[in-house]
């Protein structure tokens, strides 16, 4: 049981990462690899700020850090016309060094007693399981607040522009909107959320690790896809919510696999592979379905002839 409460909390915190990827991938229609380092950038920035005695301030700092990363990628792929995937890769590898520098050249920076969740638990006298429940509840409340802000935001004029830019940039330009500026703004928001997610995970685990970003893009993809598979692709509001839910479900599946020891000693080791396989399969379903459909139609025609 405890394990599943932990999964719930992790799913919620990683949920913001999924939302960030939903924004770049589904709304802006950009495969943004910046996430592979802005997650760690957020964690690093938050860890340093928190370790210096400002745990609450560390969250807005992470937001700003992520937005900066998104801004660089956005600038590269709009004004400087670098291919979107390459632009992300460039920012990503550049940020690796910066992350190390931020973390004072150590691959792992502890937050000590300044981790938000630790401070929170210290306010009450709680048993282990109560702590877990409190952590999950606080994470849930935080996530819901962020979701409400985002849902409202994507109903504003700027929000509509961001969505339209991914949908039909030509039309956006024809309605007197600066496509470049809107794309950059979208990438800033997406990466700010990813960085915030990284910061929260640092607070949750008590340290910031230079490798924490690895595989975040695929994780986010998996969460978005699982959300869509269960709740359908019906509009932005539902998409934002189902990304978080997808992230929770994914974490629960993982917990289940590890707990049941489905793959023996390799259960935990195989997690990333499993994640990649899920994403690969889901992404190829449309192509497979089309092929089967064609074969089916062919057969029918043959019979009638």
């Amino acid at each position: 049981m405890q394990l599943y409460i932990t999964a719930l909390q992790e799913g919620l915190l990683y949920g913001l990462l999924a939302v960030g990827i939903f924004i770049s991938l589904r709304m802006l229609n950009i495969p943004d690899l910046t996430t592979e380092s802005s997650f760690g950038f957020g964690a690093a920035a938050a860890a340093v700020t928190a370790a210096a005695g400002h745990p609450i301030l560390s969250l807005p700092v992470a937001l700003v850090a992520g937005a900066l990363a998104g801004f660089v990628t956005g600038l590269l792929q709009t004004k400087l016309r670098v291919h979107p995937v390459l632009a992300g890769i460039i920012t990503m590898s550049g940020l690796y060094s910066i992350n190390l520098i931020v973390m004072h050249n150590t691959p792992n920076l502890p937050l000590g007693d300044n981790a938000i969740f630790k401070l929170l638990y210290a306010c009450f006298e709680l048993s282990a399981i109560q702590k877990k429940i409190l952590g999950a509840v606080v994470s849930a409340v935080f996530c819901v607040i962020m979701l409400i802000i985002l849902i409202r935001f994507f109903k504003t004029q700027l929000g509509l522009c961001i969505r339209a830019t991914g949908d039909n940039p030509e039309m956006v330009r024809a309605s007197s909107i600066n496509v470049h500026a809107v794309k950059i703004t979208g990438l800033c928001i997406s990466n700010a959320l990813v960085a915030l997610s990284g910061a929260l995970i640092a607070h949750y685990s008590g340290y910031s690790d230079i490798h924490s970003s690895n595989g975040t893009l695929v994780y986010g993809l998996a969460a978005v896809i699982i959300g869509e598979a269960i709740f359908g692709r019906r509009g932005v509001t539902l998409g934002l919510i189902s990304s978080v839910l997808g992230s929770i479900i994914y974490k629960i599946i993982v917990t289940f696999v590890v707990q049941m020891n489905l793959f023996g000693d390799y259960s935990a080791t195989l997690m990333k592979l499993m994640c990649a396989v899920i994403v690969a399969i889901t992404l190829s379903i449309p192509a497979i379905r089309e092929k089967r459909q064609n074969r089916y139609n062919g057969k029918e025609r043959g019979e009638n002839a």
Partner: protein
Amino acid sequence: MLNISKLSKTFSPNSQFERHVLNGLDLELKDGEFVTIIGSNGAGKSTLFNAICGSILPDSGAITLNGRDITLMPEHKRAKFIGRVFQDPMKGTAPSMTIEENLALAYSRSRKGILSTAITRKDREFFKASLAEYGMGLEDRLTTKLSLLSGGQRQVVTLLMCTIVTPELLLLDEHTAALDPAAAEKIMEITNSIVSKNHLSALMITHNIKSALSTGDRTIMLDAGKIIIDLSGEERAKMTVDQLLHLYSEKKKLELDEDSILFS
């Protein structure tokens, strides 16, 4: 109002693919004038529109609209006062957004702050009323995604988007060409009513010579990046399709003769 002088554009200059698409084109449009443009494939009609909208920049020449020089102005900036409808119904709208969201994008472009709610109840009423005028039943489908509409219905939404904030100039690039005859006629009807109701200045490209002569108040023919025929008033009223084609071949012949004299 619109004044184009000596507009020239060459694609891939200094290469084997060099193409002089616009050749010192001059055009003056009076306020409230509705001009139809005809010309063979590749005559440079769409390129002229691209230059007016800023999707491409001309090599030389000038374009002024109501006194301001827009020759080099960025595309999204001139979109504030130029509306454009494309031939392809997919081009003018965002497919995965709803009718009201598409309209809101166009409607609030000059009116609201970027962080204000895009669609208020008042906006919704206004969209409903505007759509109801066209009698296509779209007023009851405000929350339908554009991807679920037919080409004709999309063109109506695009037309409304382009004119919901009255533009100074409306450009229509074969905007009925992708529709079936009935839908095309309906869209032409709507176009005429929008243009006359708002006293718009408009340019419309069409391959249908008959409708070019019967729509609007002036017809020009483009050939090899220049205007070779410019009809208005009495002369245009009397013109038939056959006469126009005849006129065209006369002009072409004359041009060829001149060329052969030049090169002989």
